[in-house]
């Protein structure tokens, strides 16, 4: 039935003179997503719309799933394209479309919403509404017209061909990746940070990531888990450079020299500092974390103030007001949840104090950090120099 999809986008439409840049980026990402789907697709921009056409056989569900990973798409409408514009033929085709998509046994109300941008077509929209509605009623006696609250709005657009559609599958929304700069994600193996990365990428931001690895306390499989998570996020966000930083020596130094209940907060401050270094290298304009106020000791308002104090870049915290369950729901939608709950420890969970500070005072934390003065610069430099960068690219 369907050989094409009409791609609807929301916010791009209001981007004024930059609109074509956003549209081109969207086309690029649609092409990228469809590369993974078997079939011969063409993606075209026509008169302020984007169409995906399939030549020959293709799998409808796989195609829709792939399109649902493209940020910037607000809706996906499977379209019937009628090339033969002969009026009788058009009536038959529209009636046949309804008969196939809404078969008997599902009584429904509908209305035809015709538009005729192509004014050379000899029948205007009023005529089209009336004649096509009649054709549908004749072919499908179980359908009724309701112009006020129809179950189905049958949209008919007369352009160089006639486009018929009645359904819009929601897309992920947002804006095409790359249209809003880039940011550095602090990615752990947990549930939150992949979701945070997803949400910022959804706003069109290209993403790179930093993972803190602490062998022998965290295993090679814990690292593999993070690579797997980055791969899932990259289905939506495109290419991700994943920097794997060996954090063990820094963690040990903090452990030995600083008060134990401050370990996590101090550790997180060094993670932010290192992430900012990589942001600089990658040309990123902000940091992304999965923090949510009060979720754990290191994410109380006081703790956030303390970790935030070491950054000069803005820190994007898209989950800041989310409850855990809301984050879990998102993770399940995105498809990262199952991977996130694999039981490998990451370096945020080892050595955690039984009673970490929940109301750290910035001055106190800074004073504790001075105990690291003689070693920390060198340890940071070594950690950065020995970082392994993995390029994650779903293509």
């Amino acid at each position, binding site marked *: 039935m369907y050989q094409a999809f009409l791609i609807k986008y929301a916010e791009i439409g209001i981007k004024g003179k930059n609109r074509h840049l956003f549209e081109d980026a969207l086309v690029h990402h649609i092409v990228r997503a469809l590369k993974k789907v078997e079939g011969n697709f063409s993606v075209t921009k026509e008169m302020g719309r984007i169409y995906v056409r399939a030549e020959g056989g293709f799998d409808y569900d796989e195609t829709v799933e792939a399109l649902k990973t493209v940020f910037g798409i607000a809706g996906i409408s499977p379209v019937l394209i009628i090339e033969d514009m002969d009026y009788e033929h058009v009536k038959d085709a529209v009636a046949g479309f309804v008969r196939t998509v809404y078969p008997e046994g599902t009584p429904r109300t509908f209305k035809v919403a015709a538009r005729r941008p192509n004014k050379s077509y000899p029948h205007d929209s009023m005529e089209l509404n009336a004649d096509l509605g009649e054709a549908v009623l004749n072919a499908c006696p179980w359908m009724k017209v309701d112009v006020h609250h129809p179950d189905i709005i049958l949209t008919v657009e007369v352009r160089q061909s006639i486009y018929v559609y009645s359904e819009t599958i929601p897309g992920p929304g947002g804006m095409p990746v790359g249209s809003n700069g880039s940011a550095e994600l602090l990615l752990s193996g947990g549930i939150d940070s992949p979701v945070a990365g997803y949400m910022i990428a959804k706003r069109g931001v290209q993403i790179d990531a930093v993972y803190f690895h602490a*062998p*022998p*306390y965290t*295993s*090679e499989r814990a690292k593999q888990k993070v690579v797997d998570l980055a791969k899932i996020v990259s289905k939506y966000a495109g290419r991700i450079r994943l920097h794997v930083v060996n954090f063990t020596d820094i963690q*040990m130094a903090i*452990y*030995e020299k600083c008060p*134990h209940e401050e370990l996590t907060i101090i550790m997180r401050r060094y993670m932010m500092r290192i992430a900012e270094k990589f942001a600089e290298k990658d040309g990123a304009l902000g940091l992304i974390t999965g923090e949510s106020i009060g979720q754990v000791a290191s994410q109380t308002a006081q703790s956030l103030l303390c970790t935030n104090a070491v950054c000069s870049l803005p820190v994007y915290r898209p989950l800041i007001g989310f409850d855990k369950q809301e984050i879990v729901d998102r993770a399940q939608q995105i498809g990262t949840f199952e991977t996130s709950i694999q*039981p490998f*420890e990451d370096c945020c969970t*080892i*050595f*955690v*104090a*039984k009673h970490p500070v929940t109301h750290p005072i910035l001055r106190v934390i800074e004073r504790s950090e001075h105990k690291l003065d003689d070693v920390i610069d060198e340890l940071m430099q070594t950690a950065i120099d020995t970082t392994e960068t993995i390029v994650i690219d779903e293509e």
Partner: protein
Amino acid sequence: MEAYLDNSATTRCYNEVADVVQKTMLTDYGNPSSMHQKGVDAEKYIRRSAEILSGILKVQPGEIYFTSGGTESNNWALFGTARASRRRGKRIITTAIEHSAVSAPASALEDMGYEIVRLPVGRDGVLDIHDLENALTDDTILVSVMMVNNEIGSIEPVAEIGEMLRSRQPDIWFHVDAIQAFGKLPIFPKRMKIDMLSVSGHKIHGPKGSGFLYVDRRVRISPLIYGGGQQNGMRSGTDNVPGVAGLGVAAEKICASMQENAEHMYELKERLAHGVSDLNDVRVNGPQDLRRGAPHILNLSFIGIRSEVLLHTLESKGIYVSAGSACSSHRRGGSATMEAIHASREVMESSVRFSFSEQTTEEEIDYTIGVLHEVVPQLRRFTRK
């Protein structure tokens, strides 16, 4: 230096095994079911392996059924008995320390309405045969007990169990998971009154994906896998000639010097246990008399150091061990075996399994002792406060 001390997870193939595997892949690659000469040539490997294995166990070649390995053998013994004997009863007795290749099919049968009894073991990991006697009922169809526990190396009294069952209720089938025992301890199913016995190839320097289930002639079990009727219709599927040939060669070689091997491994086990005994807070899990456990398994807890941390530290020095059972490392939480022997939380969390083969050397053990002396005190400086 490298020390591979994870031989209970898997072993390196013998060179002779790799040779025969290659030969059956490149030269004698026929399908034993084919009528032509290529098929006949390939079939010879199957016959030969069946003869080797039956010779070792002192059973008939026709009582050996080749499978894809230990897990399939165990699954088949349980499901095959459950289906064939369902009119006689629905009670299956096993232990709390079985490998998941027995415990998981048992749980699946439980979901299907079978009654599963999981007998406790003592602190040494050994089943008390009186508990088993007391658990027997008229509707019991199967007793499944492992011969050597894969995590702590405890040896179960299978000969006594076999004797007791045969004299009391000979219609109860007795299955023994001998995956960790074969090639290490003498096993004679006829004398020990074992009805079914599971063996895996890759634990004895054979290929992965190979193994067998011994099924006594008197036993009737249903097939698990149906198809072209190979192996008397009991286990269909094109014969895995490379696996079966490799399994035969491996079994022949490992069993030829079983006693010397066992002695060698007991010495290594004692050497390692004594070598680290001066490190404080080291516990032996399983039989405290090392010679009462299997020769190739030593399970130690270095209290205060999480198993995985020690594992990864040793790994960085070229020493390969397991944290608990390799097969259960994907799950969080304690191992069923460690829970069954009432190990404390700190013992459980720090348990590491060292497992040897006859190829393990004293040098490797001494190197490991040296590394442990170096890293254990270091790691103990960094623990959760």
